[in-house]
């Protein structure tokens, strides 16, 4: 039994839809710029990927007022994903046989910060009664179900930057267990509020602004000048089905989620990662084995590429642990340095880009990779997209604080 992808929706700093995201990645365009959503002048990283998404123009005003931006982004991208797949819940699939799996990290702080300010300045009755339901990380999941009339299994995964990969895996396993016929799986993040942004800074994940680098040059995965991630807001959702279900309804099949693997470092201190890459490597190898392939069958790797020096270096080690001598000749890329690390939506974004890249036979470049960091023995794609003929399989890597690792294997 195989799990296929039959639709996708994306709202990212590149625009609304998969095409602008893919076009930007292929060209190596940067969508990162100085934050203008709030005054970020006192933050270590005043740069972000901001999505030009006007919720009031796309969604009913009463819905917008009771929900946070992360819910707006998620509900909109799910609508686009279903339309892309040609599915209307209740018509093409029973509500009880439709599932939702969401990856998110921070929750809805834009809404929460505004209401908490009212709590401390004007008292409890000044706070929106929607505060509790707008903020919590499962809010997008619930609102997606309400918006689409979905009544099947639904779950939100909070596993730092591996959350979105966990959501896709959760979707695939739900389908394999026959608990649903269609699953919307993806992730969302809206980190551009003063407190949300501070959380990312104090977690030690952000690239600190440096006078020598322009805003769009700050995120440098695997580069000798790497110093952390530049984060972004956005939402990416995929439509997953069992292949037989998709074929029966005549769906256009974009590719297959053919394998996955998870592991946990269990390594102290918790803010770092297991230093040899062996544990992350096991998740990589499990993903390929599940798909019935070996490292030699991989056409490319979409790396996590956080730009955090010890994460970049150990990701390289992990690829060598997993694939031995094949690791050094595998094309590896981290296109997210062009549109920003989407946190809960990062792995779903890489998954849809990998499908698009395999269809085009072209690996998008790692933006801002000028001089490879020492100690990283990988064939990194940089400068321009690289043609890869007969490319059938892509590994997508994601990992997060607490040592969570989740890898996806996509088949064309």
């Amino acid at each position: 039994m195989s799990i296929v992808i039959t639709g996708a929706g994306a709202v990212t700093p590149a625009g609304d839809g998969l095409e602008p995201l893919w076009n930007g990645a292929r060209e190596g365009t940067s969508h990162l710029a100085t934050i203008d959503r709030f005054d970020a002048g006192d933050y270590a990283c005043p740069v972000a990927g901001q999505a030009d998404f006007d919720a009031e123009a796309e969604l009913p005003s009463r819905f917008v007022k009771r929900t946070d931006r992360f819910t707006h982004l998620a509900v909109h991208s799910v609508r686009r994903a279903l339309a892309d797949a040609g599915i209307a819940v209740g018509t093409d699939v029973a509500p009880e046989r439709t599932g939702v799996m969401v990856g998110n990290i921070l929750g809805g702080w834009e809404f929460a910060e505004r209401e908490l300010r009212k709590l401390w300045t004007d008292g409890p009755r000044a706070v929106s009664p929607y505060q509790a339901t707008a903020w919590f990380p499962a809010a997008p999941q619930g609102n997606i179900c309400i918006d689409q009339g979905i009544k099947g299994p639904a779950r939100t995964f909070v596993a730092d930057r591996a959350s979105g990969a966990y959501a896709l895996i959760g979707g695939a396993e739900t389908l394999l267990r026959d608990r649903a016929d269609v699953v919307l799986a993806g992730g969302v993040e809206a980190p551009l509020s003063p407190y949300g942004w501070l959380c990312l800074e104090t977690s030690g994940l952000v690239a600190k602004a440096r006078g020598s680098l322009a805003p769009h040059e700050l995120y440098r995965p695997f580069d000798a000048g790497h110093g952390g991630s530049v984060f972004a807001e956005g939402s990416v959702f995929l439509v997953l089905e069992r292949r037989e279900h998709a074929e029966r309804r005549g769906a256009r099949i974009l590719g297959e989620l053919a394998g996955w693997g998870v592991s946990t470092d269990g390594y102290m201190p918790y803010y770092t990662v297991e230093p040899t890459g062996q544990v992350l490597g096991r998740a990589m190898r499990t993903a390929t084995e599940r798909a019935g392939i070996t490292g030699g069958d991989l056409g490319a790797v979409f790396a996590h590429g956080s730009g955090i020096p010890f994460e970049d270096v150990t990701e390289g080690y992990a690829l060598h642990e997993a694939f031995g001598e094949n690791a050094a000749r595998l094309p590896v890329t981290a296109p997210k340095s062009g549109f920003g690390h989407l946190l809960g939506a990062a792995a779903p974004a890489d998954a849809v880009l990998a499908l698009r890249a395999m269809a085009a036979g072209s690996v998008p470049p790692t933006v801002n990779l000028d001089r490879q960091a020492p100690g990283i023995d990988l064939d990194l794609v940089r400068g321009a997209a690289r043609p890869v003929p007969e490319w059938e399989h892509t590994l997508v890597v994601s990992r997060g604080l607490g040592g969570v690792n989740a890898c996806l294997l996509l088949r064309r």
Partner: protein
Amino acid sequence: MDVREQVVAVMRGVGFDGDELEDGRRLAEDLDIDSTELVEIVVALEQHFGIGIDADAEGGFTTVGDLVACVGRLLSVGTGARR
């Protein structure tokens, strides 16, 4: 503005269209207002009119007209209802 016009103005501020707020419209069935949104509306009316509405004691509101009547009654009893 009379009380009804003011109630409509407050509800527009909460996100409703003025056109949908006729007296006979039912809050739940016609306007899709759930208990949380009703709390938001009640608080907005309290702040606008300077009154205190005990929604439980009112026995629940069914229509837009019920809201208008309640506000009108609390205003007419004067300062006793003021917060």
